[in-house]
């Protein structure tokens, strides 16, 4: 109870806080800050007075995790800042003292190179006198088995740093070219010998001379050609030859167990590379400053580009490659995975397509089309006095709704993962855009509570997909009919069933509904008399009339009469009853995305020049005319951006189906869930990757359009 109270208070405070911040933040930062501080104080006060000590709340394991997290974040941020500062200092050295800069670069690269070799267990430890190969110990367990210790992890990087660092420093200090080359070769030879003698038996290649010569020649020439562009052909050729030798000696040569120590494959390329490095004398000041400015760009852009490369580009390419391989990523299977995906019966099933034309939704859409035609003709005759068709908002709206309903009818009949995804895109994008736009327009007019309403609608955006799915799953939940329903929707539904089968409470409801119907009829009659519109009253009449009919006639709600003639509740399995369980899942995403659409549209509408609106009003345009003819065209580019962003998001929907959709087992599978299932449940990485690529290709054009529009907007 206490927690509930606290939670409710917190929620209200959070809403208030958001409202006040939205209202105050831009103009009065100090006041906003003060309010925020007061709010935090209040929250703490509630905890303290509520008897929930902060220690209890934050105590124990949770606090440890929070602290651990904070520690990690702090360290990461500190390391990033530190790296950035160091790198800048590093580059500063280039301009001032080239020798020291070279030494430092050599040390870092050397430490990295040797550390990489050791880290990949390509070379053995230097300090331990236990040879894992001879002793038959798994090298991964070696540290535990023989106790290499802390220094054991550092020995290789340290040696690499000293060897290459001091080597580079000295090389760059020597003026004579032969001396530099000689020392470079010596450093390369020493490093190569050190690596070669310690290379583990399994990592030793059998030199394939043809491959080595070809690779060295090709890459060497390539390097020379590249070097020619910057006027350093010898250096480029040497570096290229060294790299080529490595490629030929390691990548293109076979690995055979226990061959001779690989001096040839290791020493020669390192000598070549170090000589290439040693070739260039100290650059001129002009070159240095040029290097300086280029290096700064790398320092600034490098980290993000590096992350993009590691986290996005490399995985994307790898996924593409995997999609052409078999389930164990072992052999290439051509386009087999794609054919499997597109021919599987659960991907796209159109066998029941004729049912589209017998579904209720289809009849509704046909009815709406008829209404649109009639309204168009009637108002055309009324307005123009002759036979013409008026395509005003009413007709267009009715036609659009009819199209939407027809899409629903089609999607509920065409089954399969692809159609489900399409259904998601159509429904969620349409509903969230329309609702977001409606809220933005209507809330704009509100004199009171505008920010409160907007905050409430925007709030779901702050909830994670999994969190929202769990919340909604609880709402949709059904329980055994012998128990009380705990899900909100089912308890209302079953409650209605009880009510419409009860005694006098039902009569009371019927009386209220009858009164409502009468009142609506009266309202309509008076409006007609005064020649005023009566949309709201019609809607009220329709709704209350329908309820009245259900309460008097066939009864309403979740109930059934069982074999013994007793009344028993009947629940709706919102999450498993096909095909509309899909729609109930979409509601979750609509709930989350409406806020996003609303915020963007709200900003766009506020940016429409008020002169336009005023001019339209002066010309005598009605509210809806102003909206459809002035506001909407002005914000059309924004609508495009919102729609495309949402298409991309909805196509990738996964969490909701996985959590609330019970894993997509009930005719509600979508592509992302299938990708997860194939890759991680069934273990078919090839098929999983193929699904991922298909999703990527579907999203790609929308994405490109989106970026294109946004860039155009920015200009």
């Amino acid at each position, binding site marked *: 109870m206490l927690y509930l109270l606290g939670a409710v208070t917190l929620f209200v405070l959070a809403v208030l806080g958001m409202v006040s911040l939205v209202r105050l933040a831009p103009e009065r930062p100090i006041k906003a800050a003060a309010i925020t501080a007061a709010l935090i104080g209040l929250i703490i006060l509630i905890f303290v007075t509520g008897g929930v000590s902060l220690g209890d709340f934050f105590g124990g394991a949770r606090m440890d995790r929070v602290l651990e997290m904070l520690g990690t974040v702090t360290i990461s941020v500190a390391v990033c800042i530190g790296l950035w500062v160091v790198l800048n200092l590093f580059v500063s050295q280039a301009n001032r003292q080239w020798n020291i800069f070279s030494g430092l670069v050599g040390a870092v690269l050397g430490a990295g190179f040797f550390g990489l070799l050791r880290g990949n267990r390509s070379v053995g430890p230097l300090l331990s006198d236990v040879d894992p190969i001879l002793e038959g110990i798994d090298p991964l367990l070696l540290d535990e088995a023989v106790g290499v210790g802390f220094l054991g992890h550092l020995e290789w990087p340290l040696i690499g740093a000293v060897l290459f660092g001091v080597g580079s420093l000295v090389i760059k200090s020597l003026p004579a070219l032969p001396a530099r080359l000689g020392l470079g070769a010596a450093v390369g030879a020493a490093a190569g010998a050190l690596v070669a003698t310690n290379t583990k038996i399994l990592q030793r290649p059998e030199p394939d001379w043809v491959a080595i010569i070809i690779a060295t020649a090709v890459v060497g020439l390539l390097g020379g050609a590249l070097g020619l562009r910057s006027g350093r052909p010898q250096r480029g050729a040497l570096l290229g030859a060294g790299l080529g030798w490595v490629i030929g000696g390691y990548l293109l040569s076979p690995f055979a167990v226990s061959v001779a120590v690989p001096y040839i494959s290791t020493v020669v390329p390192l000598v070549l590379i170090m000589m290439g490095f040693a070739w260039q004398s100290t650059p001129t000041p002009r070159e240095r400053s040029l290097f300086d400015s280029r290096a700064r760009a790398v320092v600034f852009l490098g980290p993000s580009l590096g992350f993009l490369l590691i986290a996005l580009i490399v995985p994307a390419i790898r996924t593409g490659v995997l999609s052409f391989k078999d389930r164990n990523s072992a052999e290439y299977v051509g386009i087999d995975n794609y054919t499997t995906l597109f021919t599987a019966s659960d991907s796209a099933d159109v066998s029941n397509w004729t049912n589209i034309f017998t579904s209720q939704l289809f009849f509704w859409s046909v009815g709406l089309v008829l209404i649109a035609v009639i309204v168009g003709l009637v108002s055309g005759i009324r307005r123009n006095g002759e036979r013409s068709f008026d395509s005003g908002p009413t007709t267009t709206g009715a036609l659009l709704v009819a199209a939407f309903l027809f899409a629903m009818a089609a999607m509920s009949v065409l089954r399969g993962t692809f159609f489900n995804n399409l259904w998601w895109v159509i429904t969620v994008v349409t509903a969230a855009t329309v609702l977001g736009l409606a809220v933005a327009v209507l809330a704009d007019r509100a004199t009171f509570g505008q920010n409160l309403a907007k905050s409430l609608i925007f709030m779901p955006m702050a909830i994670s997909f999994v969190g929202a799915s769990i919340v909604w799953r609880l709402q949709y939940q059904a329980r055994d009919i012998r128990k009380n329903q705990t899900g909100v929707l089912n308890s209302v539904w079953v409650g209605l069933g009880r009510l419409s089968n009860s005694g006098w409470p039902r009569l009371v409801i019927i009386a209220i509904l009858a009164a409502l119907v009468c009142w609506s009829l009266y309202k309509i009659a008076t409006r007609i008399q005064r020649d005023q519109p009566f949309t709201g009253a019609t809607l009220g009449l329709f709704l209350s009339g329908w309820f009245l009919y259900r309460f008097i006639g066939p009864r309403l709600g979740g109930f059934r009469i069982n074999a013994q003639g007793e009344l028993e509740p009947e629940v709706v399995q919102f999450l498993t009853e096909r095909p509309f369980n899909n729609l109930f899942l979409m509601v979750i995403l609509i709930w989350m995305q409406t806020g996003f659409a609303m915020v963007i549209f709200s900003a766009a509408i506020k940016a429409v020049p008020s002169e336009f609106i005023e001019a339209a009003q002066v010309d005598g345009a009605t509210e809806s005319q102003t909206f459809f003819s002035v506001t909407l065209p002005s914000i059309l580019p924004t609508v495009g951006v919102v729609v495309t962003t949402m298409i991309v998001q909805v196509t990738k929907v996964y969490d909701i189906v996985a959590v609330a959709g019970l*894993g997509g087992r009930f005719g509600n599978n979508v592509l992302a869930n299938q990708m997860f299932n194939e890759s991680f449940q069934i273990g078919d990485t090839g098929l999983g990757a193929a699904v991922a690529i298909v999703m990527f290709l579907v999203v790609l054009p929308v994405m490109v359009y989106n970026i294109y529009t946004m860039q155009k907007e920015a200009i």
Partner: protein
Amino acid sequence: MNKWMKLLAALFAVSLVAAACGSSTASDAADAVTDAAGDSDALTDAQQALEDANKAKEEAEAAAQAAEDRAAAAEAAAADSGEGDTATALKVVTVSGPERSEAEAGALNAALEEFGNANGITIVYKGSANWEADINIQLEAGSNPDISIFPQPGKLADFAKAGSVLEVPAEVVEAITPNWSDSALAFGNVDGTQFGVPNKNDLKSLVWYQPARFEAAGYDIPETLDDLWALSDQMIADGNTPWCIGIESGQATGWAFTDWVEDMMLRTTTPENYDAWTTGDLDFSSPEVTAAMEAVLEQWGKDGAVFASGGTIATTAFQANGEPLVNGDCFMHRQASFFSSFFPEGTPAADGSEGAVDVFYFPSNTDDKPVLGAGTLAGAFEDRPEVWAVMEYFGSAEYANARQQAQEALLRGDSEVQVLSGFNTANRNVDTDLWAPLERSFISIMQNAEIFRFDGSDLMPADVGAGTFWSEGTAVVNGDKSVADAAAAIDESWPAS
């Protein structure tokens, strides 16, 4: 400045020599130094460096000589003292496996350490979260452990056929045979050859119930399958709900149904048919399999037979069956041994108290008492006496006892009361007093089973065992598909090769 640099060059040459110590590059480096120090006034420094290098080389050679001598001496000592002496040679056996929780890996290590200390072997166990992927990579790279613990027989069979897992020597098989039933040993048997040694087991053929409520209602524990169905009908007639069933499990929805079907396969047809079914030789569409599925659905479909707390079986989470059983919404729940942790906190297990839950064997009409279960197996990659000693130990009662003691102690902590360890075994010679009463009955069911079969869906290819068998099974349970249609769909999804 120049001179200082030259001095540094000379010093650096020395360090080069030191870095390449032991390799034959000392002279190379020194030659390079001669080149580097082209000016005449640096020559003396370079000569000095050369001398240093030579000295270092001599020292290194001397050290190498000494090491060789030591090794020779050690060899001689080993030869003198004979093969039995383990003190001079370092015997290391590495073991890997998927178990890595503190209690499991800790107990495993403790049991291995005990054995290692007694026999002079250093045994290291390392659990891995990605065991399945890791072992492939390790084998490919040649960095595999000596022994690995396989979570299921399929993988062991693959490795055995590929030749990487070695056949268990006859004397080891002989030593462990008295401890295990033939069918428990058969998990590690590939085409008649023993490749694996059982390590731990779990069982699934269990029905959870509350003895006190059975007693109060006057129900007896059924001895045969027919008795069980009769009891179920009796309960319905009495106005009670016999079963709690729910098969929802997120992405894995449906597995609880497949367990039922597997158990029913063992009871309605022969074990040979079961084996043929798991290997794909017997279709899902065959009368044997569809009959087993129909038998399950028949019992589930009886009016009033099932309490599904989520409204329908397909939407009830498998975890959500513990509470209704304790609350009295149903009388029985068929689920594996791990289910003990899904009862409301504080529910006593098999201690004879009022609200305690207990298990009885999911009965069979035959006397061979078939049991559906699972088990991990140890397989060896290296052929060394100490490796086979550890393998033999895995199949021994001493191992099971030692591990149980360690695991129970780790989980119990400071408490006085015996707790469930989660480590169960089909080993017939263990000291069952070491286990808590509930687990004691698990073990006795497994010990008495003449037929012990591994969870079929784990043996089938993942496309079926973790794919269509689950999804089509769910569709059948939810009434979206007929048994025939679902069976045909599963057969179609069976991988071709």
